[in-house]
């Protein structure tokens, strides 16, 4: 009896220590970033750092605005593309696709989730960038000469390319999770709706999606949180130039993760350079956290309403 109690206690302690360890890593990362970023905060005003788009480290200009806005652009484009497409795909897969088709498609989609970001980047360069520069951009630049489309960047390397590649990257995981969520909706409530004379689409829209809504929102959060920090693929297709704020989906974008990956380690001679880049990392962390908090807030709100 005593030995069993002892084992129980030991296991409990070990797990507690491991848990503390994991949490302390997070704590030290945040503290470390902040500590390293503080020199620049002491010299430049936060307003300049956040809202200026002039990034000229050798002249002492460290405006991060361009990178922050780029991150928002690319993520927003990814969201706009990924949400409807992944939702509809998951619905088709769960509700409409014949069983055999589902059995083939599901593993394929899971496979897509495991492909390295570099491959997505290469695919973006080979397929998406030319598509934008040859077809999409000329089409829009003639017809829709207003806010999110007006641009003079004809290269195809753009926020749009970054957003598309990003959305395709987070696609599989979102589809996969939504599919699992939809499968948990009991067959009987579908039957109950159909038995009242509802069509399949009415049943899906009014009953299945309603029932699955918290899970679907959670799936989006999971996927889009990944989108925020994704570096490699975006870096390869978004252009990453320092031409001021992107004002159009066709302008080049230079998101925070790309800045960090591109420059960290090669700028030690310039004063405050590393401090500025680590501030960028800190801001990225904050943005991701903020996004998560808002998203989980929405989720909790939905869940509370449904109960």
């Amino acid at each position, binding site marked *: 009896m005593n030995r069993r109690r002892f084992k129980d206690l030991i296991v409990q302690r070990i797990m507690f220590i491991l848990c503390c360890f994991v949490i302390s890593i997070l704590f030290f990362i945040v503290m470390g970033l902040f500590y390293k970023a503080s020199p620049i905060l002491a010299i430049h005003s936060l307003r300049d750092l956040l809202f200026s788009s002039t990034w000229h480290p050798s002249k002492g200009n460290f405006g991060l605005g361009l990178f922050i806005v780029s991150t928002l652009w690319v993520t927003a484009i990814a969201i706009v593309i990924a949400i409807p497409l992944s939702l509809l795909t998951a619905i088709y897969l769960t509700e409409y696709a014949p069983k055999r088709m589902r059995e083939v498609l599901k593993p394929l989609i899971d496979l897509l989730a495991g492909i390295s970001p570099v491959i997505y980047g290469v695919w973006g360069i080979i397929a998406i960038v030319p598509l934008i520069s040859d077809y999409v951009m000329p089409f829009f630049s003639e017809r829709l000469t207003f806010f999110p489309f007006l641009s003079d960047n004809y290269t195809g390397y753009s926020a749009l390319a970054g957003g598309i590649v990003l959305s395709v990257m987070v696609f599989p995981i979102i589809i996969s999770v939504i599919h699992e969520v939809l499968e948990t909706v009991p067959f*009987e409530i579908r039957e*109950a709706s159909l*038995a009242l004379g*509802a069509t399949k689409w009415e049943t899906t829209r009014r009953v299945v999606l309603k029932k699955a809504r918290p899970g679907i929102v959670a799936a989006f959060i999971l996927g889009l949180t990944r989108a925020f920090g994704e570096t490699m693929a975006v870096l390869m297709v978004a252009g990453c130039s320092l031409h001021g704020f992107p004002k159009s989906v066709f302008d080049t974008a230079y998101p925070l993760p790309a800045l960090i990956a591109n420059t960290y380690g090669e700028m030690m001679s310039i004063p405050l350079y590393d401090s500025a880049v680590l501030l960028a990392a800190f801001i990225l962390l904050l943005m991701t956290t903020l996004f998560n908090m808002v998203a989980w807030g929405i989720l909790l709100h939905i869940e509370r309403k449904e*109960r």
Partner: protein
Amino acid sequence: MEAKSHIKVRNLNVYYGSAHILKDITIDIPEKKITAIIGPSGCGKTTLLKCFNRLIDLQDNVMLTGQVFVDDTDIFDNSTEVIQLRKKMGLLFQKPQILPMSIYDNVAYGPRIHGLKNNKKLSEIVQHYLQEVSLWEEVKDRLHDSAARLSVGQQQRLCLARGLANEPEIVLGDEPTYALDPISAEKIEKKFLELRKNYTIVLVTHILRQAKRLADYVVFLYLGNLIEQGPAEEVFSNPRDSKTQSYLSGQFITSA
């Protein structure tokens, strides 16, 4: 006095893959009567019920032969509108299947999908059918709360109201009192007796006493075969088949 039959089943066979589930079933279900379908577990009662409103279509790998006529139209005919057929029938499940929405929206669901938009009319319908199933007094102050918060007995009455709001001609019940406490069960039974005036009722039940209390007409299935059907008094007091006799006397309840 011979009643008109509302549902006619003619030589119906159902197969799941290679399993022969319903074997050459021929039944006449009389109009505006309660027909009880009895038989041991797994004999195909639910399957038969799901043929009537073609929910059976949802199953993979199912094959049907034979015919079912509702109001003299062949429901498996290609020209038959499944939606119209299903609208004609309200279905109650073993466990109440609440739609994930408010009490009000549950009852209004049927009328809404069939095109009713007028909010005043919808409210009248909701109130009327909730009164019809004696649920109105219990829920009138929280119509817009989630229906999932109701007790199981209330949920089953809500499901009945939801079905009736669709203005069906037929009410199908698949052991509708299965999950209910005796008092809730009694409420449902009483409701069925009242509904008999205006609706044709088909009731699957495991409870022989319930069948005796409610049924006008009895169908006994055993291992996918139709063993016996007839007016309730006859079947219960004077069963012709020996299998019916032993089932009614409580033997071979477990069957493979």
